[in-house]
């Protein structure tokens, strides 16, 4: 990292790497948190014509700052259309109009299956998590699914405590260490890129299963000045 003129955090690299996956004109159903941050960054950098859909019913929102919730007033005011929650799920998501679903999770397994329900046993959980939200249907109705989460042995687990969401359509997982994509006949998540300054071993150690590393492992380009400036402007809310 010493070669770069600006320094950046691992979370910033993760957000930037994720934002680069989104392309102009894509229709993206986005969850709050990391995915929303990355999608809003993309809107300000490489994908100004990205169509953001939030489960609150806002279609084509272009929020002026990073929304704190999926139902911020700014989302409705800047949207092309605002529809009801039943409609956004039935006529828009289920109807197959979404190019990419963008999800977070508490746990992921090697097939991209996600847990956002409980740590421990469902009936007697150690940690009760918020639950499924829109994820199960986003993951099966969107054409492809991007996942963002920080990579640790507690999040990248050999076996989920609970399978909230099917990983079948997951095409890319972006973490604070690198990028994973399904590879091979079994479509196991495989490390295909590492971020600047990260060695594959660090990713291996942060993974609860024996992580496969792709031939021709790539190295993520560091955030550009423009990306970092846009991201930092986005994450600095004055009303928080």
């Amino acid at each position: 990292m010493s070669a770069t003129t600006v320094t950046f955090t691992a979370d910033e690299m993760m957000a930037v790497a994720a934002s680069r996956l989104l392309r102009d004109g894509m229709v993206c159903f986005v969850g709050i948190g990391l995915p929303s941050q990355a999608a809003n960054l993309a809107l300000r950098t490489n994908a100004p014509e990205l169509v953001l859909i939030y489960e609150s019913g806002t279609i084509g929102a272009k929020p002026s700052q990073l929304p704190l919730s999926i139902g911020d007033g700014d989302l409705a005011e800047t949207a092309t259309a605002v529809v009801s929650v039943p409609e956004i799920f039935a006529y828009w998501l289920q109807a197959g109009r979404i190019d990419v679903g963008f999800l977070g999770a508490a746990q992921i397994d090697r097939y991209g299956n996600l847990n956002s329900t409980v740590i421990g046993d469902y009936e007697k959980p150690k940690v009760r998590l918020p639950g499924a939200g829109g994820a199960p249907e986003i993951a099966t109705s969107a054409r492809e699914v991007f996942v963002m989460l920080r990579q640790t042995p507690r999040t990248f687990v050999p076996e989920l405590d609970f399978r909230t969401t099917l990983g079948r359509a997951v095409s890319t997982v972006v973490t604070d260490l690198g990028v994973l994509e399904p590879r091979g006949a079994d479509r196991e998540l495989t490390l295909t890129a590492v971020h600047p300054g990260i060695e594959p071993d660090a990713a291996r150690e942060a993974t609860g299963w024996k992580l496969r590393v792709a031939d021709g492992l790539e190295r993520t380009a560091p955030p550009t000045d423009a990306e970092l400036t846009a991201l930092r402007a986005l994450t600095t809310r004055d009303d928080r």
Partner: protein
Amino acid sequence: MAELVSLAEAVDELVHDGDAVALEGFTHLIPHAAGHELIRQRRRALTLVRMTPDIVYDQLIGMGCARKLVFSWGGNPGVGSLHRFRDAVESGWPVPLELEEHSHAGMAARYAAGAANLPFGVLRGYAGTELARQSGSIATITCPFTGEELAAVEALRPDVGIVHAQQADEAGNVQMWGITGVQKEAVLASRKAIVTVEEIVPELEPRPGGLVLPGWVVAAVCLAPGGAHPSYADGYHERDNAFYVEWDAISRERETFAAWMAQHVLGTADVAEYHASLGVAA
């Protein structure tokens, strides 16, 4: 026609111990004032229904009002966990909480089915999720034309639906605008509906994005300006983002939670006193 009554009267008359009650509002227009009134009147053994239980349900659960929660996502949006919800599920405090857990798409389909007086809704859903195992309200159904298998979900028909809106007129017709979520369905799926409003106006003026509910589908309309706080009411008051962050500390421990509820909810008579106690503008 809807009766224009106080929120205290409406809750007293219309909500009973053991009822299934749906408070809806998707980030916007969350009926906090009504939740507080349920707490003040010490309702017990409620089945609380809500797609996104957030602070209002954390308060109801922590105060022991709920026996069961029907939901799809329970958290403090943009902040983290709901500590009272977690405490109830993880430790049964103050009372055990039964869960009936769905996805958003499933809950939305359940409300829509209830609003339409159908016994079930159909969706492409619950594929590969273990949620389907946890609930008796999810089944499969076969298309009689294509043979395809889809998910069926049991309709939601709460005893009482409660929402917050910007305006009502004197006949009890209600208008809300902005993000209106699943509120129409929650009102129409419920056997009785209570609507709290920012303002009673002589006549509703149609607004862009306005959703109007005729007064004859509403049992009670109650004036409660600022009744969504800390949520927001587009055109009336902003979201109190700081409060969502503060709630994390308030609710983390049972004692601080109980003290806060005693001071700001049990110790206040209505939404105006609640605002005054917090020093927020209505």
